[in-house]
């Protein structure tokens, strides 16, 4: 036995467990989850008062490497992830160069191997150069280690190309992740179309720009049988469409982001570029619909769409500011806010951060089932803290939750039986050099 986590409260949605349990780890894997485990001579982690969760997984992260290391890189991004309780992240392909070929995939994996403190799952491009014209070499991408493909940041505007992607990717067991946006309808929009945009006079994006493509992609998934995952869903209409598709038995999953179930379009009323992202923050009815979809398990995953930008890139006129907010270090706390407010059952909340995302992209982990990797997150559900972007491990500060009082935060992050984060400190240079337990 490597060590035993004793006295904690295990929440493992995959096995329906929500009870006090000890967890034994051996050779980097979960050995046992039992009411009481005698550690013998093995070291013990005292987890009394803590939740013991499967390692959190964020399936929508922009690590910005290669190409935009001034915004974020694999080292800083995975540190931010580990500090937020994440043991694995999926890295989006809109890097420079684009991850549309095996060379770039291998580069990212090599960077992660050398300097990453959580697992990094590269996601390849659907189309060469994200141009939405020709399919990328999805077979080679899959072979090199990509777990999914997406043109995220851009929609696949061509219905034919989307159909081909769903068909072709299925041969390699790769999920197609869709950024749903009808560019013609959304064109030039900088915020949600609603009352706030009427006041601000900013060009706006209607909810239908997202929903039209959600509907299209669901129909294409029905036609092709291809595995479709819908990224960053933000509207009540998208929630309805996803629910309908699942009832029809379509092979589809969907994610939303913490800002979509927490903030409304009013957050941009002061022209705050830190609340600018795509899709944009919507109306209160959308926020409530996303919360409801989480409660019902319609949405499979909470994913941050962590999108780092340098401060001077965001300190410009609203329309000129790039889209995107960071989220790795706030996702857990903001999700638990729903739990503390009685809006979401804690098992569902944990599921949306672990088992749900693992299943959505077919990743290992997401559960504490014996035999699986010992990816474990220890959470103090009562820890009160105030979001202070200056204290982030991320290079970026473009966080829409600055100043928010949260309850609940990761205190320990264990990847493959090795502790990478403990009580505010990153403990390792990479996964290989990490020690089993903090010393």
């Amino acid at each position, binding site marked *: 036995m490597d060590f035993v986590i004793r006295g904690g409260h295990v929440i493992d949605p995959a096995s329906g467990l929500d009870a006090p349990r000890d967890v034994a780890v051996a050779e980097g894997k979960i050995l046992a989850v039992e009411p009481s485990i005698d550690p013998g001579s093995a070291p013990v982690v005292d987890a009394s008062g803590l939740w013991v969760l499967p390692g959190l997984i964020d399936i929508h992260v922009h690590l910005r490497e290669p190409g935009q290391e001034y915004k974020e890189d694999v080292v800083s991004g995975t540190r931010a992830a580990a500090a937020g309780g994440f043991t694995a992240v999926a890295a989006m392909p809109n890097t420079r160069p684009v991850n549309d070929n095996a060379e770039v995939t291998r580069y990212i994996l090599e960077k992660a191997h050398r300097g990453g403190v959580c697992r990094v799952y590269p996601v390849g491009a659907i189309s060469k150069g994200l141009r939405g014209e020709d399919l990328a070499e999805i077979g080679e991408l899959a072979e090199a280690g990509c777990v999914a493909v997406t043109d995220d940041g851009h929609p696949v505007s061509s219905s034919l190309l989307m159909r081909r992607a769903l068909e072709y990717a299925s041969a390699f067991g790769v999920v197609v992740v869709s950024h749903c946006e009808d560019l013609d309808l959304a064109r030039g929009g900088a915020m949600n179309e609603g009352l706030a*945009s*009427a006041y601000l006079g900013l060009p706006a994006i209607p909810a239908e720009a997202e929903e039209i493509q959600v509907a299209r992609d669901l129909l294409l998934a029905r036609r092709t049988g291809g595995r479709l995952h819908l990224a960053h869903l933000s509207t009540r209409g998208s929630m309805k469409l996803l629910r309908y598709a699942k009832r029809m038995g379509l092979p589809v999953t969907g994610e939303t982001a913490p800002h979509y179930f927490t903030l409304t379009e009013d957050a941009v009323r002061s*022209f705050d570029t830190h609340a600018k992202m795509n899709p944009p923050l919507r109306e209160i009815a959308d926020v409530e619909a996303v919360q409801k979809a989480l409660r019902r398990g319609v949405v499979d995953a909470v994913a941050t769409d962590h999108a780092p930008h340098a401060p001077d890139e965001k300190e410009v006129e609203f329309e000129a500011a790039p889209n995107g907010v960071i989220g790795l270090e706030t996702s857990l706390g903001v999700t638990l806010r729903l739990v503390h407010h009685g809006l979401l059952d804690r098992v569902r909340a944990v599921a949306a951060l672990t088992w749900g995302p693992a299943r959505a992209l077919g990743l290992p982990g997401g559960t504490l089932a014996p035999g699986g990797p010992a990816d474990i997150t220890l959470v103090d559900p009562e820890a009160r803290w105030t979001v202070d972007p200056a204290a982030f491990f991320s290079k970026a500060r473009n966080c829409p939750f600055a100043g928010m009082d949260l309850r609940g935060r990761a205190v320990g992050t264990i990847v493959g039986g090795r502790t990478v984060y403990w009580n505010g400190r990153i403990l390792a240079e990479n996964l290989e050099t990490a020690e089993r337990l903090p010393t």
Partner: protein
Amino acid sequence: MEFQRKDLVAIEPLAPEEIVHILDTAEGFLEVSRREVKKVPALRGKTVVNGFFEPSTRTRLSFEIAEKRLSADTVNFSASTSSVKKGETLLDTVRNIEAMVPDAVVIRHGAAGAAEFVARRLGCSVINAGDGRHEHPTQALLDLFTIRRRKGRIEGLTVTIVGDIANSRVARSNIHALTKLGARVRVCGPPTMLPPQVERMGVEAYTRVAEAVAGADVVMALRIQKERLGRAVFPSDREYARVFGLNSRVLEGAAADAIVMHPGPMNRGVEITSELADGPRSVILEQVEHGVAVRMAVLYLLLGGGRSEWTS
């Protein structure tokens, strides 16, 4: 009443009393412009920078005249002559302006929120001379000033605004100002030119001009801003003029003493006929004259111009 604000970036945050105070102050300055020596020393020694990042003729001229009549030192720069063209960011431009220690910056910019962006970062006063499609507060103030002088009040009047409401900063500022002072505001245009949920801004929405104008005390035409429209939201100038244009026939349904306004510059024969624009109901040139007085009042109030005896 003392005017406490550092900036005038929008009408939306103003209290009704603040708007009234600006209008009252402008009354005094109207007289200054009619003197033989059109100058008071109220802002002597103050430096005002007019930063026009977007083309403007009349607003810039109006501000400049207002500043000079208050004896301020004025400096102008426009996008075409400034380093903006060389790719300097707004933030850097602002920092450079700040280093020269002006007392006020008047800013016209194509991006909504630009005036607020600048106001938050500058210690001096900032006046919004139009930011994208967001607001144009001094235009609304001069419009209210004109209405009040003609009608003796704002409260209880029915004001109809016709045109591209969604893309108009003039409409937005006027909607805020008029509703705050108790006017009943109707907006009218093709549905493609009305912002979503516009009624929640406290106005009544119409798509038929005759209905919108019926019984109105004030009818305001907006400029069709082709440069902002992107892809066309109406089929042709001809159809627009025929269906949504203001002419003397449409105005027959308005109140007998209804006035006709336009913020300029006009597309004659499109949103308004020449007959109406140059006719007895038109107060369009009064609006221009009042613009100087209102801008003098705003500058004076923001810069704490000292004793009010200059205006009496």
